[in-house]
């Protein structure tokens, strides 16, 4: 049962972190990076 508590605690913490990051505007940072061509990924940056 202890493991179940740990599972749900981690899940809640992860969800909170995700929502907090989104509210803080981190999705815009991700969009900015992902919407421009990543030269490093392509091996030319």
């Amino acid at each position: 049962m202890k493991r179940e508590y740990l599972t749900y605690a981690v899940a809640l913490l992860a969800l909170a972190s995700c929502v907090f990051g989104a509210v803080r505007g981190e999705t815009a940072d991700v969009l900015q990076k992902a919407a421009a061509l990543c030269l490093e990924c392509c091996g030319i940056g």
Partner: protein
Amino acid sequence: MADLKTHRRKRKAVQGLWALLTNAHLSGFVTGQIYSGPLKRFCVPGMNCYACPGALGACPIGALQAMITGRKPRFAFYVLGWLALLGVLVGRFICGWLCPFGLVQELLYMIPTPKLTVPKALDKRLRYLKYGFLLVFVLLLPTILRDEFGLSVPYFCKWICPVGMLEGGVPLALLDRGIRGAAHALYAWKLAILIFVLLLSVFIHRPFCKYVCPLGAFYALFQKISVLRMEVDTDACIQCGACARICRMQVDPAKTPNSAECIRCGACIHACPRNALKFRAAGKGTSGAERRTT
């Protein structure tokens, strides 16, 4: 065995559909223009480069490094939270069912050639490499090494990642003369890594996933506590070893059903003659039979 074949076909269909769905910006493969709409705010669960002309979402490993490499490095609450949430919900089920690069490696492994088995002791050591790649190339180097302007680069994407080359570097070089012209030593290095990984995949099952993938390493951290987990009914298990023999990740599900190396493909469930293995959701009770969930 017919049941196992059906299961494998179903899984391939899910993997293929998911790869298509996450790369559904099909016009990009013709024009060479990457998708830059609002969906790119969201990280896809598997390794899928955001420089791929078809990619609709962001690569989580690329996005994580992007948060770190800026002039003002920020803790990546959104990306890490999202990945931890996926990890704690389904663990490496994502590797087995929703990763396009995993599918590519599996398709290559289907080419009928003699297959290689890495000696157990060496294999065990090599498996730790992926945690090193996660720690050093994804987290530490982009945080520590900065230029005079305070900027860093995504070291894993730049120096290692074959997914970016396969999905971004190669198709874009084919479509865009400018990119072809800019391809020099770094491009050759990454192309060599890609070719090496693809060739290795013909002989070894999912070598990138086993030894290199930082995303798989991250999900593996949650495997033992994930909501979706594997369970062995020890009363039903006759220890015939059928599950271990069928596992291409070299896990022995009867002994360690929730091993960090298990990608939850489910082949062992269908290979078991006594139906002793099954997926179970955390918190759900069982029939009362003795069970093993470590």
